[in-house]
């Protein structure tokens, strides 16, 4: 029996799933809390728990797939190692004029003479001397180099030369040189600034991902798992860890991608909308024809617009563990901050229940929240920060007591938030998870703590705790429904601005069932089913499916669908080759990964590409970890009609896309088939199940 292991590190939870490779059936799943300061700790716990269950020996695991939020989080948080960006043929005045320096990610930017034009002809010779000088000056200060040339995607010659120089000049005693990434390796698209952004972000991530892979590898080895490790890319495909180390930027959005792939493999549907409710965020993405739909504009991560084609996922800051609080106007706000649910904290620290009981009596400000310290940091902290952390040394403290005991009273909240952002403290408070405990939909931890937390909030808005929780859960569903509608409209028409468009908001309210007395009802219908994964989706998604008048599929093992998806993808590599007509001599120019080549006819050029590219791509795919690769080519000719009397059509160019798809090694002749234990819940069934639990 071949068993594979999938691991997904999310914002709150790290999931592990053991899958039987032949049947695709999920054998076991486990969750652990994600340990952001060192992801491998949470990974180790989840994997150990998953392998603990069934009669599977760790040595039986033949492949490990890992999807990680490392790249996405590091970029959003601005983390990364020092990198030098070498720009060839860029105009610093243009960059300055339009404020593009902000997009370059690093301050260490070197402008080198050189560059090409749109046809791939050299505009200026590469200033090798300056390149050498820059590399030598920085080789001891940076951990990697990023190289981008103007029109480098039309002719990579200068980028390749600079890369060779970096490899030559930074080689250390052990024979290794510093990592270097070139623009033309990551994309074939135009926009020199965005390419620079992408290549710099990639270079910054390389040391981080190397470290993660190394620690995951040793964690797996310690558990007795010797299988090869593969990493999920943002398009849902898999590559060997070695390969991912060179292009970490391609792993952004691997979490949402894995949940879409997992949804397909467990639920077996080819055209669905996937909703993944996590602890911190909810991700919404489309599965089309069995594949995650990609964003061809390039993924946006944090404030950066990259050129990575990753899953087109819409993410909202709302999850099962989002903090629920009342704002100054008494409105209930959910998220985006993620906290430890009160029920979970109380199950680890029973005194929390007594504290909450007391707070219900006394009605203090800032009641219902606790603060815990996280991991320590070597960084220097201010005296006030240190004092606060000192108070937390013995264990979690109620927020109210911090306000009392520390000198600066109400500024404590500001300070706590700042330490939270640095991941030095974590808060605990009322969450949708607590709401589910109160309502009896999901009772894993201390329900009394949830009930008291609900009371603290409910009395402030004149509701009973049960009513408050019902409204909270409905609120979560409404937000998910709204997000789905926004995503589809944004893709097909324009992103709705519910605040600024009152008539749209009015229709939405009616569609959500918020205006039962109106003469006008609004029924929106989603034309595809929703597959819900994450936990616990039974509580929130039936209402969403009802509001959108569509089927809901909650597959078995929905709570670890991400982890299943992390090992279910195939190895897919693409290479795009452009052919353009030359205006000077009626020839056709082929733009390849290693230079340009001219041909007297279009068909000759295409024939040449078909000769050299598939072999290269197959070899790369095998390096990336694929077995039995197949190369396919699609050809798109770009031409347009010319007005009558002036000729027939004008030829603008041809785009050849070579794609290899293969299963990841190890071998095994069985194909990976969609899960055999599919159960489709219809809405009535979900309702019956719910009522059964009351």
């Amino acid at each position, binding site marked *: 029996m071949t068993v594979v292991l999938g691991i997904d590190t999310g914002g709150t939870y790290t999931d592990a799933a053991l899958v039987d490779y032949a049947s695709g059936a999920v054998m076991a799943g486990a969750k652990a809390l994600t340990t952001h300061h060192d992801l491998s700790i949470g990974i180790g716990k989840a994997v150990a728990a998953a392998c603990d269950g069934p009669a599977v020996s760790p040595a039986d695991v033949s492949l490990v797939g890992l999807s990680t939020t490392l790249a996405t989080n590091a970029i959003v948080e601005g983390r990364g190692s020092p990198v030098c960006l070498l720009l060839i043929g860029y105009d610093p005045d*243009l960059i300055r*004029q*339009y404020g*593009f320096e902000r997009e370059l990610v690093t301050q260490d930017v070197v402008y080198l003479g050189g560059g090409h034009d*749109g*046809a791939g002809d050299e505009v200026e010779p590469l200033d090798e001397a300056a390149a050498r000088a820059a590399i030598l000056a920085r080789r001891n200060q940076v951990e990697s180099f990023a190289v981008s040339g*103007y*029109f480098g995607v039309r002719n990579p010659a200068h980028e390749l030369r600079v890369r060779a120089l970096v490899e030559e000049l930074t080689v250390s005693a052990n024979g290794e040189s510093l990592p270097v990434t070139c623009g033309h390796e990551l994309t074939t698209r*135009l*926009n*020199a*600034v*965005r390419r620079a952004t992408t290549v710099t972000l990639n270079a910054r991530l390389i040391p981080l991902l190397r470290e993660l892979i190394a620690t995951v590898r040793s964690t797996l080895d310690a558990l007795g798992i010797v299988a090869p490790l593969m990493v999920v890319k943002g398009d849902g495909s898999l590559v060997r860890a070695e390969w991912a180390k060179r292009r970490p930027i391609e792993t952004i959005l691997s979490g949402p991608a894995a949940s879409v792939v997992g949804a397909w493999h467990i639920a077996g549907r080819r055209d669905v909308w996937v909703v993944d409710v996590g602890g911190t965020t909810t991700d919404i993405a489309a599965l089309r024809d069995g594949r995650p739909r990609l964003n061809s504009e390039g993924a946006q991560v944090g404030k950066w617009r990259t050129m990575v084609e990753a899953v087109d996922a819409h993410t909202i800051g709302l999850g099962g563990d989002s903090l629920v609080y009342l704002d100054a106007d008494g409105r209930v706000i959910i998220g985006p901050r993620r906290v430890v649910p009160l029920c979970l904290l109380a199950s680890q620290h029973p005194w929390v229940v007594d504290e909450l009981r007391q707070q219900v009596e006394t009605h203090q400000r800032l009641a219902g929240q606790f603060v815990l310290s996280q991991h320590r940091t070597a960084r220097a902290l201010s005296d006030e920060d240190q004092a606060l952390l000192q108070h937390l040394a013995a264990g979690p403290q109620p927020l109210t007591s911090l306000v009392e005991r520390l000198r600066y009273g109400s500024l404590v909240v500001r300070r706590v938030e700042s330490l939270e952002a640095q991941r030095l403290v974590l808060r605990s408070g009322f969450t949708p998870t607590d709401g589910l405990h109160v309502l009896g939909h999901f009772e894993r931890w201390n329900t009394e703590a949830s009930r008291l937390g609900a009371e603290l909030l409910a009395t402030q808005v004149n509701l009973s705790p049960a009513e408050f929780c019902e409204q909270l859960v409905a609120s979560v569903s409404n937000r998910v429904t709204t997000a789905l509608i926004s995503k589809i409209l944004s893709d097909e028409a324009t992103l709705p601005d519910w605040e600024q468009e009152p008539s749209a908001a009015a229709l939405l309210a009616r569609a959500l069932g918020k205006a039962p007395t109106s003469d006008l009802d609004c029924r929106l219908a989603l034309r595809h089913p929703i597959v819900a994964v994450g936990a616990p989706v039974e509580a929130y998604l039936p209402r969403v499916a009802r509001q959108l008048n569509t089927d809901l599929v909650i597959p078995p093992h929905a709570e670890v669908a991400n982890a299943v998806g992390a090992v279910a993808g195939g190895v897919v590599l693409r290479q795009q080759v452009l052919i353009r*007509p030359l*205006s000077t001599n009626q020839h056709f120019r082929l733009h390849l990964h290693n230079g340009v080549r001219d041909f007297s006819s279009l068909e000759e050029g295409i024939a040449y590409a078909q000769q050299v590219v598939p072999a290269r791509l197959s070899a790369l795919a095998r390096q990336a970890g694929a077995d039995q690769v197949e190369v396919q080519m699609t050809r798109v000719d*770009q*031409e*347009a*009609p*010319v*007005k009558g009397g*002036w*000729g027939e059509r*004008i030829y*603008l160019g041809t785009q050849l896309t070579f794609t290899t798809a293969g299963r990841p090694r190890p071998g095994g002749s069985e194909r990976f088939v969609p899960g055999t234990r599919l159960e489709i819940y219809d809405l009535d069934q979900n309702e019956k199940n719910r009522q059964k639990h009351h």
Partner: protein
Amino acid sequence: MADILEKITSHLYDGEDEMVAELVQKALDQGIEPQEILAGGLIAGMDVVGKDFKAGDLFVPEVLIAARAMHAGMGILRPLLAESDVPSAGKYVIGTMAGDLHDIGKNLVKMMLEGAGFETVDLGTDVQPGVFVDAVREHQPTIIGMSALLTTTMIQMKATIEALEEAGLRDVVKIMVGGAPVTAAFAEEIGADAYAPDAASAVDVARSMVGA
């Protein structure tokens, strides 16, 4: 007041440049604001010219003569408009593609746009893609208009759009294309924002691009 502006419009349509100049001065003497004369007299006149040209009732030579009359009127108003800081409808950079020396169509578009209140920058003929990019940086126009009259130079329109894309500037301007062999399908294929079949439509398209 409306009377004199109507007269300006009518004489402009007939291409009587001296009459238009005289009437514009008279309107100013009457105390009418330069901006009003421009909008109610000159632009209004060119609008009718454009409408009839599109309908096929006027032909290119007549449009050129009307444009000349408009220029005569503009000559008087321009210094006063510059003083009073009247906003233009938008800035428009226009040129004929590299390798192409045709300019009649381009000049007609330019005149019609000026008649509609746009500020124009004419890059001339045989304009390299890089020169368009430089013009965007220097003049910061709202719209770029590209003209080609040879099928061999149409392809330069694509090269110019690519040059703007590579510079990261594609989104700072709207791009309009035209010329005898150019088609709407071609415009879409190369990623232009719009196509105009003639000078009068060019004004309509330009207006919709600036949100008028």
